[in-house]
């Protein structure tokens, strides 16, 4: 164990240089996912038939196939029709589009769990459907969705490592490189585990704080 500590301390700085990339990737992808997820959720709840169908197909495909494959299609497939992204952008887009499908479903569930009376009351005041959604339903749904959203955020934080497959040097890529050089792969994996557990715990704690901060009695 103490041998591992020596190993970890020696190589930690090099691996930690990947943290900004990992976090940047994660934040950008989650942001894209949240915005697109909101649109998709709206489309799946309130959209007319064609819009509903399109959104549903999107969600099915992005949830039904591995994210790695999606990323390869964006990174290596799109250039064939002339769209070329650099690896980091491609990774952000791939993870963002994927998490959007999941976030859309969580949000949809949360919207549906807001009691119907809330919308009825908003409509009775004279609000339109959209006004009611924005002013009444959404603020409640967003609060309800935080726990699931936290799960998703933490999951995605760990998933950012697949960006390595298209040449983004984030934490995992750096750690594995140390593995190839020292051949101490097992120690390297323990190191990765430790770093991710620390990062995910911090993120989980922060999101818990957010949840407390915006919580309202009765929601």
């Amino acid at each position: 164990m103490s041998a591992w500590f020596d190993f970890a301390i020696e190589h930690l700085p090099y691996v930690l240089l990947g943290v900004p990339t990992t976090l940047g990737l994660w934040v950008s992808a989650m942001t894209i996912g949240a915005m697109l997820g909101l649109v998709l959720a709206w489309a799946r709840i309130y959209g007319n038939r064609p819009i509903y169908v399109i959104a549903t197909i999107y969600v099915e495909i992005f949830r039904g196939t591995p994210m790695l494959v999606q990323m390869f299609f964006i990174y290596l497939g799109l250039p064939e029709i002339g769209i070329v992204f650099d690896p980091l952008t491609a990774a952000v887009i791939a993870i963002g589009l994927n998490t959007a499908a999941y976030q859309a479903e969580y949000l949809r569930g949360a919207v549906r769990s807001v009691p119907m009376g809330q919308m009825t009351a908003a409509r009775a005041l004279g609000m339109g459907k959209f006004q009611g959604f924005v002013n009444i339903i959404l603020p409640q749904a967003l609060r309800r969705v935080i726990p699931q959203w936290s799960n998703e955020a933490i999951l995605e934080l760990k998933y950012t490592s697949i960006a390595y497959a298209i040449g983004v040097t984030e934490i995992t890529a750096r750690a594995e490189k140390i593995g190839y050089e020292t051949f101490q792969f097992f120690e390297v994996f323990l190191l990765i585990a430790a770093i991710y557990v620390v990062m995910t715990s911090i993120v989980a704690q922060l999101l818990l704080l957010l949840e407390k901060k915006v919580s309202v009695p009765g929601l």
Partner: protein
Amino acid sequence: MIFETLLSQMPYLVHGLTVAIGLLVCLLSLGLALGLVLAILEVYGHWTLRLVCVLFERVFRGIPAIVLLLLFYYGVTDYIEMGSFTAAVLALGLRSAAYQSQIFRGAFLSVPNGQMMAARAMGMNKLQAIRDIIIPQALRMSIGPWTNEFSSELKATSLAYVIGVVELTRQAKYIISNTQGNILVVFGVVALMYFVVNRAGNWALYRLENRLSLPGFEHRGDA
């Protein structure tokens, strides 16, 4: 050319898929049984038990799946002899248990308090009430969220290659490296296979949900 190769290698891809499905079934079953126990302990257990459950859940949800697989295959096997597949079932199954415990916990908490009270007031002890009253209701409510877990674990099986389980993705990798290319075509086919299994699984689960659905367990109407 690549399509001929794909065609000739299809039996091996299909075999890889059956390995993936086998792994999926085993890990989900382990996750279900253990997840249910964890959820019950977390909701109704003594605080020490709750603490243990929370710790378990934190650890198994915090560590990336690949790392868990390696830790099990190369760490735990120092103490217990097991092959790649068993190690994969244990690593991914325990991880799934952590996730499933959260699904079930949510479902337990959403069973109205009065149900437990009514059962207890009748003279049922806590275990009887959980078994006969709470679980039948909670399980019905869990099917929806459980489909998500099904989908994500199906895709997680593809990670088991790191400890030598030759499943679908690894078989695909063989074709890619043998032809030194064709990443998109081969992965496209693989994605399609995952998609089909995922749809079939979800279809079955939704059917189950419908068959088990009772008046009073429908979703609340859309806003």
